[in-house]
């Protein structure tokens, strides 16, 4: 399972070419930011852009652990709630979603960075902490039925429409 968005490659390639014609390659950065924010915010709201529906609910044991975690005053991420399934516990994984513009390849990569996780989550008795990276956690989460790194059709349309507006602005500038 991927910790990188794959279904935007063609979109970014074509939009990058269009932006080259329009002399506005700076807009690629805006598009990367838009895509990144849409993934994170939609996930935080409990929905998956990959499946188009609510993120799979939490098991009872998981909810108990999460309640315990909160009661112990441990650090929790934005919009954490014990029963809420929005891929948020400490908040580290979603905070690690990033984008990078690779102009030479007309690409924008959106990915979960392989950064370390200073806040260790709960471990079951007798088990050692796994010390996974955020990328590894994202892969595991997707493998376990909660894929989130992708873009929906409406998000693609938003990006396409942003570029259209830029091109129209450039057309207007050509008027004497």
């Amino acid at each position, binding site marked *: 399972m991927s910790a990188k968005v794959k279904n935007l490659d063609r979109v970014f390639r074509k939009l990058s070419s269009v932006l080259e*014609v329009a002399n506005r390659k700076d807009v690629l950065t805006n598009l990367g930011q838009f895509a990144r924010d849409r993934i994170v915010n939609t996930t935080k*709201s409990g929905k998956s852009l990959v499946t188009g529906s609510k993120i799979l609910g939490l098991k009872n044991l998981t909810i108990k652990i999460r309640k315990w975690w909160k009661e112990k005053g441990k650090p929790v991420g934005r919009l954490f709630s014990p029963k809420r399934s929005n891929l948020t516990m400490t908040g580290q994984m979603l905070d690690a979603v990033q984008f990078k513009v690779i102009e030479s390849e007309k690409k924008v990569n959106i990915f979960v960075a392989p950064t370390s996780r200073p806040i260790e989550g709960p471990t079951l008795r007798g088990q050692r902490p796994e010390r996974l990276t955020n990328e590894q956690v994202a892969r595991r989460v997707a493998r376990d039925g909660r894929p989130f790194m992708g873009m929906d059709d*409406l998000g693609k349309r938003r990006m396409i429409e942003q570029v*259209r*507006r830029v091109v129209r602005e450039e*057309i*207007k500038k050509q*008027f004497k």
Partner: protein
Amino acid sequence: MAKPYKDVIKESEMALEIDLAKIFGTKARFTEEFRQAFANSAIQTIVERTQEGRPLFGNWRKYSESYKESLPFQAFGKDDQVNLTLTGDMLGTLSVLESSGSKVVIGWDDPTQTAKAFNHHTGDTVPKRPFFGLQNQEINELKSQFKDEAQSLEPRTRRVGDLLRALETIDQLEQEEGIF
């Protein structure tokens, strides 16, 4: 001043058909680049006014407490300003639907966003917050922005030709992605 545009306000269709000949009082041959640029400015006008929290007319009711406490409201980092923007999908997909002769039509071609726009504009199941249209002052500003070019019948420059072809590339991309 009578509106120089015709508005269609229905749950299945939300569109403004703008008559450039009426706005500019001329039978000039409007070029495609002019129509695209004007339509874009009209869209920007509506979107910016709405996102600044200003109604098309009247007043907008404030957000309810229950809405402000909802998960989507918080997930998308909204604040108290009423601006018809949660995910941004509705205003972000307001687009040029048609462009020919002296007419441009702006609106939505996505049924979900159309219904959303209708709902907000008319208050069908949410508080009425009219936003879709152009105020007289806005029309006058658009007219002022474009009045010199409206008279121009000069052939398009090569760069404009490239930009218009770029718009066609974008249309093709939507077809390829199956999201038109």
